[in-house]
Structures are given as structure tokens and as C-alpha cells.
């Protein structure tokens, strides 16, 4: 099979694929149900996948509900994103031993595992590509990110449905996975059975696929897979006019709408924690009581905290208005200046997981509308 041709896997074939990855030494992680949400965690078998579940999402709203079928990937994205593996929430950077002679600093060793990600959505592939630019694309490279990223095996899944807060079509990031994966699956559940139409994009993907029983897809199967994605694209829950949003926001830094959103925003930082591209971190040092050993850890941080912008004397962004503005203008505007790409992939997590349902697409619309009056 060459890369242009599509293959078909059965459910059993998918299990064999996961086994093949594990045998190659990968730590296989993917979606699973925990705490009434679909999260990303270790997957021992396809039984760990959220079979027969879907999610209902809206501003500040997330519910799992049962499906009428046995689909394994019949939902959209949950509170987790793959950054929890590639850019861990808490990571020791180094430790130091102090003795009479001085200090010896020891860098944190690379992890001894490599990841296989199962069920990465198109928006998430874009999010990974965006974090690649942040951590690998500049003058300095983050060795921790690189160590986790470079050997990761990625199985994408083309979304079979759009969530209530999805707007990847607006951001040109989905729903069909186009790059950044080894294998991409489209789940087709119908009267004729339950199959996965597979596309291989890399040699690594082809090699693994070769170890798994599969057959070539028929034209009808390929068409069915294509129509799944087309239907998803046509049913986005949200929409954002994004091509001029950079200029729009930067000429509206004093728009009264920021005061309005500040009335609602709790500055809880949920949006930044669930965002698959937010990369900000802080560091903290610790030592034992005798100061014989010390270490530094890096922890996810958020521009919604007061400490984030603290310089001696106080915080630069003391008001919630300025902190929300910082987050949104960074995400949608200055990110482009910094990394040549938007920081938003239209996954909708910030809308769903906002406790008061602030909707980034609605905020953009309100600012845009304010210019019409």
C-alpha cells in the first residue's frame, strides 16, 4: 500500500495495532472515561476507550451521554489535551547537591518512555504543531519537550461529529487531519459494520500498519469516510471570523467590551489549563532543611494569576480586564507576531470549561459588532 491509498481496519485490527505499538515499547495513551469526562490516559486495550459514549458541550457545560451505537471515538475533545504528556504540568528541571566543596547541578534526565497517542483530533495536531514552534522553533530548544515529542507516534482520528463549542472550520484546523500524524483513522459505523478507514502519512505509520491485518479500502468505504468529515465540518457548534482578528483586537485594546467580560470572568485560569496551546510556566525552587540538596521545578502557570506579571512593587496586570485581554489578544493576535500562527485551534475547550461560559467566539463577535455602531 502506498500512502495515497487507504486501508481498512476492523475493531480487532485496532486492538492488534495498539498491541503492536506496545510491543515496540510505546506507552500507549488515549481517550478514556474517568470522573464523568473523557480524559487522556494509559490505554491497555480498546476496552478502555469510551465505547458508546458521546459528549454534550456548550458554554460552561459538559455532559457524557450514551450513544445509540458502539463507536469508540464518537465524541469530541475533553478537558485534557496532549500537552499534559509533551509539556508536563509539573516537571523537575534540575537538582543540585551542595557539599563543602561547592554545588553540583544535575540536569533532569530525559524520560525513558516514548508515547503513542491514540485518537488525536485535527485541532490537536495543529495545537501540537503550535507548541512545536514555541519549544523547538526558536533560538533555544526545550530539551524536555523535544525528548517527549521527537519519538511520539501519533494516531489521528478524523472527527465523526462536531461538539457544541467546536469551531475548527473557522480556524482552518479541522475537522480532517491533514498533517502531523503517522496514521489517521476515520471511524465508520453503519449498517454494513464498524470499520476504521486508515491513512498512513509516514514510514513509521506504514511500518506499524504492515504488522496489522488490514485490507485496501473500497471506493465506497473511502467515500463513506470522506462524508463523515464533510458532515462534521458542516455542523460546527461555533464560528469565528478569524482572518482579520489580529488587527481587530489590536485596534480595540481599549474597547469597553473588556470591562464587560471582566464583570463575568473569575480569572480562575481554567481556559489556560485546558487550552492545548497555552504554554506558560512558572518555576519554583525547593530545598531540604539543611540546604544540602535543592531543585527547581517548572509548573504550568496562567496569565490569569496576579503573580504572573509581578514586578517589584506590584502586578503589571492587576485588573481582571487586563488579564482577560492579555489572554485573548495573545491567543488570537500577538501569537501571530510571535510565532507566525494563531494560538487558537478552535477546539472550544475554553468555552466548555469556563465556569461562567465565557465564549471566545462571542467576545470576538462583540468587539467586531462594536465597530459597526
Amino acid at each position, binding site marked *: 500500500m502506498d500512502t495515497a491509498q487507504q486501508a481498512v481496519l476492523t475493531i480487532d485490527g485496532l486492538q492488534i495495532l495498539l498491541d503492536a505499538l506496545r510491543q515496540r515499547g510505546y506507552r500507549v495513551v488515549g481517550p478514556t472515561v474517568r470522573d464523568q469526562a473523557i480524559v487522556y490516559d494509559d490505554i491497555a486495550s480498546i476496552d478502555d476507550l469510551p465505547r458508546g459514549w458521546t459528549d454534550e458541550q456548550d458554554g460552561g457545560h459538559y455532559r457524557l451521554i450514551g450513544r445509540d451505537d458502539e463507536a469508540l471515538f464518537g465524541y469530541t475533545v475533553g478537558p485534557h489535551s496532549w500537552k499534559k504528556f509533551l509539556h508536563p504540568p509539573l516537571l523537575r*528541571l*534540575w537538582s*543540585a547537591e*551542595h557539599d563543602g566543596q*561547592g*554545588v*553540583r*547541578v*544535575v*540536569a533532569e*534526565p*530525559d524520560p*525513558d518512555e516514548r508515547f503513542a497517542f491514540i485518537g488525536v483530533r485535527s485541532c490537536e495536531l495543529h495545537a501540537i504543531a503550535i507548541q512545536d514552534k*514555541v*519549544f523547538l522553533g*526558536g*533560538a*533555544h*530548544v*526545550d*530539551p*524536555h519537550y523535544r525528548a517527549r515529542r521527537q519519538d511520539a507516534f501519533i494516531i489521528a482520528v478524523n472527527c465523526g461529529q462536531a461538539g457544541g463549542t467546536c469551531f475548527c472550520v473557522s480556524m482552518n484546523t479541522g475537522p480532517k487531519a491533514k498533517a502531523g500524524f503517522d496514521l489517521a483513522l476515520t471511524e465508520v459505523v453503519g449498517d454494513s459494520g464498524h470499520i476504521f478507514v486508515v491513512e498512513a502519512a509516514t514510514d513509521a505509520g506504514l511500518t506499524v500498519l504492515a504488522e496489522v491485518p488490514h485490507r485496501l479500502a473500497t471506493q465506497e468505504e473511502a467515500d463513506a469516510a470522506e462524508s463523515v468529515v464533510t458532515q462534521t465540518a458542516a455542523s460546527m457548534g461555533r464560528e469565528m471570523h478569524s482572518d482579520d482578528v489580529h488587527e481587530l483586537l489590536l485596534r480595540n*485594546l*481599549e474597547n469597553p467590551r473588556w470591562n464587560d467580560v471582566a464583570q463575568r470572568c473569575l480569572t480562575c485560569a481554567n481556559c489556560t489549563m485546558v487550552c492545548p496551546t497555552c*504554554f*506558560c*510556566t*512558572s*518555576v*519554583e*525552587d*525547593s*530545598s531540604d532543611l539543611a*540546604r544540602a540538596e*535543592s531543585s*527547581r521545578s*517548572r509548573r504550568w*502557570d496562567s*496569565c490569569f494569576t496576579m503573580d*504572573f*506579571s*509581578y*514586578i*517589584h*512593587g506590584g502586578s*503589571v*496586570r*492587576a*485588573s481582571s*480586564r*487586563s488579564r482577560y*485581554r*492579555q489572554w485573548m489578544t*495573545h491567543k488570537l*493576535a*500577538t501569537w501571530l*507576531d*510571535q510565532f507566525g500562527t494563531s494560538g487558537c485551534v478552535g477546539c472550544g475547550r475554553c468555552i466548555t470549561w469556563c465556569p461562567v461560559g465565557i465564549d471566545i467566539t462571542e467576545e470576538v463577535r462583540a468587539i467586531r459588532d462594536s465597530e459597526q455602531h
Partner: protein
Amino acid sequence: MAPPPEPPVHGRTPPDPMVPCVARVRRRRRDAPQVWTLDLEVDGGDGTKNFPFAPGQFNMLTVFGVGEVPISLSGDPAKPGCLVHTVRAVGAVSDALARLGPGDPVGLRGPFGAGWPMTEAAGRDVVIVAGGLGLAPLRPALYQLFAGRARYGKIVLLYGARSPDDILFRREIESWRRRLDIEIEVTVDHASSVWHGHVGVVTTLISRADFDPLHAIALVCGPEVMMRFAITALRHSGLDDQSIYLSMERNMKCAIGFCGHCQFGPVFVCRDGPVFRHDRVQSLLALKEI
């Protein structure tokens, strides 16, 4: 299976830009209330103690077990074996840093950031406007100007401090005053009647200074409000925005554009600055809480 532990990190170029090398305090002296200058020496390892840097750059200094802060280099770039940092003890880390004594270890990462436009300054009058601790990151620029004195036009140093006691590098300023090839004016915000120098804000010195605004370049460093006033005065004197440079301060945790803290609109102060040409940040300076 876990890989073998890595060898201890020495020298200045560890593979991980977040891992400090170990320097030692060679000397510590008090410059003003709460302000201390530390001379550091990098531990050997690569056979040299040299640590080249450009005027205006900064290092990240760690007090082991306490934390890390960005501190600008305030010494002579022509003496790269001795790393001079001037620290104001205002927080847990800077306070611990200021308490270190000779022989104490200091974690060091750097040098980071874009410094002063020393190449652009060649052939022009150089007006240096410093406020408070802002003189520290400008001192390496002054050393370089003195070392290549013939390459520049007039050199003017205008320095404002809170009170006579708060003047940094006082003896050195007095020795510079004895040079006949630099105009130095020092002013304080208020003083007792013992003080014989200027009293008034540093911006008032700008209109009195002798330089050709059409062929001058200005280097400004100090508290942000002071810099805004100074820039207004410099423009009033006839300098254009492309000839005014300023050094910004923001919270920094990594110094390499990863942590996100130092964002100032589209720029990362650590990576794209701390020194910026005024026209690049002008629109943001007037905005609140950016």
C-alpha cells in the same frame, strides 16, 4: 530502564538552557541602601573563566534553594572574567542574593537578551538618561563608549536618583567627571541643604544638555514612568523615535521565551529586548496594564 545520570554541568553552555552553571561570589560591596554589587566568577570546566556579554544584557542568577531572578550585567564587557551584577534587595531571591558573601555559589544562566545599540551609536552624540537602578545596565555601555571614545561624538550622562544617598557608583561617577570628554549631570528628587548638586527630575536635565539632536542617539533606562517622561523630553529636544532606545522590565522566569511571563504585547522582553528602539514599543508604552 533509566538512563545513566548525566555528568555535572560546568561551563556556560549546558545542553539545557534552563540549567544553571555554578559561579562564585568574588566580592560584594554596598552601593546604596538595599543595593549591592556582586562580582562573580564562573567556575572553570572549559578551562576559561571568560563570559563574554554585550552591554544591556542580563543573566539569570540563582540562590540555590531560594530561587532565580534576572539581573543585568553592570560590569565592563572588556573584562569578561569578572561578572558584575548590581542587585536591589526587594524580594526573597534578590534579598538572599544580596546577602551572599565571597566564595558563595551562585547559579548562573546567560547572558540573555538584546543589548544597547553600540554599533548604531558610532559616529553620533550619545545621550544616556538613567534613573535610579537604571544606571546599572547602562554602565557597560559607558565602559564601551570610553574604550572607543574616538568613535563617538559628544557623550552625555544624565542621571537621576531619589536622594544623594541613592546615587549608584558614586566614586566612579566622580572619576568620570574628571574626564574632559563627557558631560555628566546628576540630579536627585530631593536633598538636604548639604547637597550641592542638582535637585529636580532627570528629565529637566535633557533640555539643558549639550548635544546635537539630529545626530544623537539616546539610551534610556529607569522606572517605566521616568522613561516615558524622559522620552517626551528627548523628543521635545528634537530626537526622533528611531534614535531613542529604552530597556524594559517585566517578570521573567526563563529568559528564553518559554515561560510567557515577560510578554509586552507582541514581544517577549527577555528574548526581543530588554532593550527596544522606541518606535517598536511606543504604542504599548502609553497603554495601561499591557
